[in-house]
């Protein structure tokens, strides 16, 4: 519970657990609005259901009309694809499946790592329209959880519930007190999960208004060096970074940047994005932007 007396609405969505905390219990209608938004997002973007839009694009090349949030995802991925030299890409779905992380959770590699196709050769993403030159495995997992948190926050705001905290299993979006609602609410103290031991924290960050998202190689890992953060240029899991955190105004951006930190130095990303960051490397040391608030231990 982020604040004393708040209530929580929990549910499963897009393959993970969600907790929406609000000062007062959400009505049935409001809960339904949230679940509808989750279902709509899943129906468009899930790699794990055959009726989704991206599952269609994995079978048949062509022109796909995507939901409005695609207009945010496209440019975000495009920037990070460029900054990472192609390592971070929405075309990583087929590479993930090759290593066993596909529908059905086979979790056994089918062969050697498979590099992702080059964006400029197979994909044209203009706003909400996707045009593909061949069947492509689109996976927006690096930003999707964060973006859905943003969308749920927008739903709550439109319902007049300006104060809320959304916890998407460790990716957090805090509305803060909201404009004209300075209730003196303290920031939420957030522990940073230890990359090798979920029972420990490596630090604490006070979260005011904004998003704090994490990416880690310790979870969604299925043994023998296999985990879900793949380098698109090789199709193999990233080894040098084991965990990262990013703070930004929107959860989509924070979520995407947390993954980008696996490929690109935080200081480089900061030249193009307004965010704070912390990266833990596999040799046990950490680097962070000097504007981070909190403690590291």
């Amino acid at each position, binding site marked *: 519970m982020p604040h004393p007396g708040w209530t929580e609405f929990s549910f499963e969505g897009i393959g993970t657990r969600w907790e929406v905390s609000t000062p007062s219990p959400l009505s049935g209608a409001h809960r*339904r609005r949230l679940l509808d938004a989750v279902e709509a997002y899943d129906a468009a973007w899930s790699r794990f259901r055959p009726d989704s839009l991206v599952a269609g694009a994995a079978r048949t090349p062509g022109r796909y009309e995507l939901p409005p*949030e695609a207009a*945010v995802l496209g440019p975000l991925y495009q920037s990070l694809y460029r900054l990472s030299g192609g390592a971070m890409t929405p075309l990583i779905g087929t590479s993930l499946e090759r290593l066993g992380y596909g529908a059905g959770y086979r979790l056994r590699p089918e062969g050697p790592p498979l590099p992702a196709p080059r964006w400029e050769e197979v994909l044209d993403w203009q706003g909400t329209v996707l045009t593909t030159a061949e069947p492509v495995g689109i996976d927006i997992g690096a930003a999707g959880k964060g973006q859905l948190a943003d969308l749920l*926050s927008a739903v709550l705001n439109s319902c007049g519930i300006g104060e809320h905290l959304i916890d998407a299993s460790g990716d957090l979006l805090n509305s803060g007190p909201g404009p004209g609602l300075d209730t003196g609410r303290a920031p939420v103290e957030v*522990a940073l999960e230890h990359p090798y031991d979920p029972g420990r924290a490596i630090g604490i960050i006070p979260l005011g208004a904004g998003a704090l998202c994490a990416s880690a190689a310790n*979870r969604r890992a299925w043994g023998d060096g296999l985990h879900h953060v793949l380098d698109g240029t090789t199709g193999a899991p990233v080894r040098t970074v084991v965990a990262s955190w990013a703070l930004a105004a*929107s959860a*989509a951006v924070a979520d995407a940047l947390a993954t980008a930190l696996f490929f690109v130095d935080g200081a480089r990303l900061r030249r193009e994005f307004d965010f704070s960051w912390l990266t833990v490397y596999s040799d046990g040391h950490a680097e962070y*932007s000097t*504007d981070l608030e909190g403690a590291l231990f």
Partner: protein
Amino acid sequence: MNTSFRKSVLVGIAGLSLAGTAAGCAPAQTPAAQGATPAPNATSAQGATPAAAAAYKDGTYSADGNYVSPNGTETVGVELTVAGGAVSDVKITPHPSNPNTKKFQGEFAGGIKSQIVGKKLDEISVSKVAGSSLTSGGFNAAVTKIKSQAQ
């Protein structure tokens, strides 16, 4: 010893708004087609607990690890101490062969902590954890199955 981050003002939430692009508060257009049940993309193995260190016997374990990074081959020594079913200590010995690692450390003086140790969650007072320990039930269940097959 703690490393304190410098004070700052976090960016406001007004920077990037998605309001209006998804469902508003008005009823959805096709409510009949959208059940209240969670998205069915994970198999129904909810409640699978994340893998815990409790499966390991007490003792001290060490190993060297080699891996190929974009900067070339790196080697680290890792020593884990397990007590009472939990990891009580982690010692990681970087082998400073990678010139880029040293370069980064030079460039980010003040923004670097040489060794992350951590604290037990019950030693600190927080209301939320930022990480990824609670991933999908289906995924965790599949991993558990593979582990049992590996035994």
